[in-house]
Structure formats: C-alpha cells, structure tokens
C-alpha cells in the first residue's frame, strides 16, 4: 500500500506558457490563501523520466487541479494540439480509481460546455469555470476547497495583485524569464503563504 498523501497538498496541472502566467500566479496565491500547498511537476529534481516524476507527484498529493482552458491549437506557431494536461488528468483518474480515498481531482475550464466537446469522455464531470480571469480562479478555488477561516475573494485578489505586480523582480533576481522554473515557483509559494498569514492577522477593508 502506498504511503498516505499530505492532506494539504495539491498537484497543479497547468500549461506552462506565457499567456497563462496570470492564472498560474492566481492558482499559487489562491491555494496558499486556502492553506494548501501547491506542487508543480517542474519542482522535482532528479534524473527520472518526466512522466515518472509527474506520477510520483500525483501519488503524493491529496488533491489535483487540472486546468484544461488552453487545450486549443496554437495557430500562431506550429499547429500542434496540447496533450500534456489531458495526459496528466488521465494518469490522475487512473490513480484515483485505484485509490478513491486517497485522491480527489478537479477540472477547471475558461469556457462553459467546451469540455463536452474537447473531452467528451468526461461528460458527467462538471468543470469549474474561471472565465479566464485571475479573480475567477480565486473564486473557483474557494468553491472547490471549503475551509473555515478563509479570506474573502477580494482579499485574495489584493494579495494576487501584489504578487503578480512583483513577479518581474523575482524573475530578475533569478536571471530568468520563466516563472515556471522550480526556484521561481518555490519563491512564489513562500511569498504567497507569508502574505496569506499576514493578511489573516489584519482586519479586512472590504
């Protein structure tokens, strides 16, 4: 029997592209505000095969979030559909089917009813629709993960704006333009968690 997963850990299955950066930061900030610990495939060091690393991470997490909002074909460059997110979702569904009490997964989309066309086998699964906005991501995370003492969406948005506004400074210090790098991801998590703890201690303005 595999070891029990960390009850606060969430595997984040998101596209690693430039257009998604805002929503990526929103996921990190939102999960940290909910006192959850986000995990990304890029954070695991070592020379294992990428797929093995991802599966290992899925098994160690209690929850997973699969954002299928960017499964469309990119018409500006090569017309290759994006299969990574659905592939990782498939691995998760298999794991959850084998061990139902150890994992729960959630699908997020930006457009309602599109999932019925892009992955019709998931019919019967209601995706959470974030409408492609950071506030939408924060709202849907609050809808998915219910927990006592959680700040309101406007308060979460306040932290999101601050973290997103300082992203360039973090990237600059790492000498990279890639916010999905392990070191940048880890710093975003630490900063979001610290600010979440801080904002919890102050009285709300809204």
């Amino acid at each position: 029997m595999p070891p029990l997963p960390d009850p606060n850990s969430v595997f984040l299955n998101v596209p690693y592209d430039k257009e998604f950066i805002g929503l990526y930061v929103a996921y990190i900030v939102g999960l940290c505000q909910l006192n959850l610990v986000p995990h990304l495939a890029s954070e695991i060091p070592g020379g294992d095969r990428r797929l093995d690393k991802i599966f290992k991470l899925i098994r160690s997490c209690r929850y997973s979030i699969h954002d299928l909002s960017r499964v469309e074909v990119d018409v500006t460059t090569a017309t290759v559909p994006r299969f990574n997110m659905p592939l990782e979702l498939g691995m998760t569904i298999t794991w959850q089917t084998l061990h139902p009490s150890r994992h729960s997964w959630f699908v997020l989309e930006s457009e309602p009813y599109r999932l019925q066309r892009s992955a019709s086998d998931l019919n019967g699964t209601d995706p959470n629709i974030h409408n492609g906005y950071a506030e939408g991501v924060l709202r849907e995370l609050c809808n998915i993960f219910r927990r006592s003492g959680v700040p309101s969406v406007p308060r979460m948005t306040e932290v999101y704006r601050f973290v997103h506004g300082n992203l360039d400074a973090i990237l600059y210090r790492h000498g990279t333009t890639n916010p999905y790098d392990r070191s940048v991801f880890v710093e975003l998590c630490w900063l979001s968690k610290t600010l979440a703890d801080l904002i919890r201690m102050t009285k709300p303005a809204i």
Partner: protein
Amino acid sequence: MPKSVYITARRPTLEEMEKSLRIPTARKKELQVLVDKFKDQLSRREETPATAIRPEKRRKRASAA
C-alpha cells in the same frame, strides 16, 4: 468526482511548507523585502479607511449643498 471538498486537516505552518518546498534560507531573506513592502501597503490602507471621502469630493459636496 465531488464538486467541492470540505477540508478538516490541520493547516500547515509556514515552517512545514518551507520544508515541503525546500526553499533556501538566503532566498527567504531576500523575499522579506517584498513582505515588508506589503506590510507597508497594508498599514497605509488601515490608516485610510475605505469609507473615507476624499477632501476634494467633500468640498464638491459642500458647495453643491
């Protein structure tokens, strides 16, 4: 799959999260600058309540009356 979950697990502390994410201490010190900046932003917001009316708006209201 459930549409939502109610989490009853104990909240992780910052130290536990640091351990899980393996963040170097030097980085934390550098990030502290941003934390202080946010603290400053929060304290300034507390000094100016959201319900406060800006002076120019107050003057306009007074002249209209």
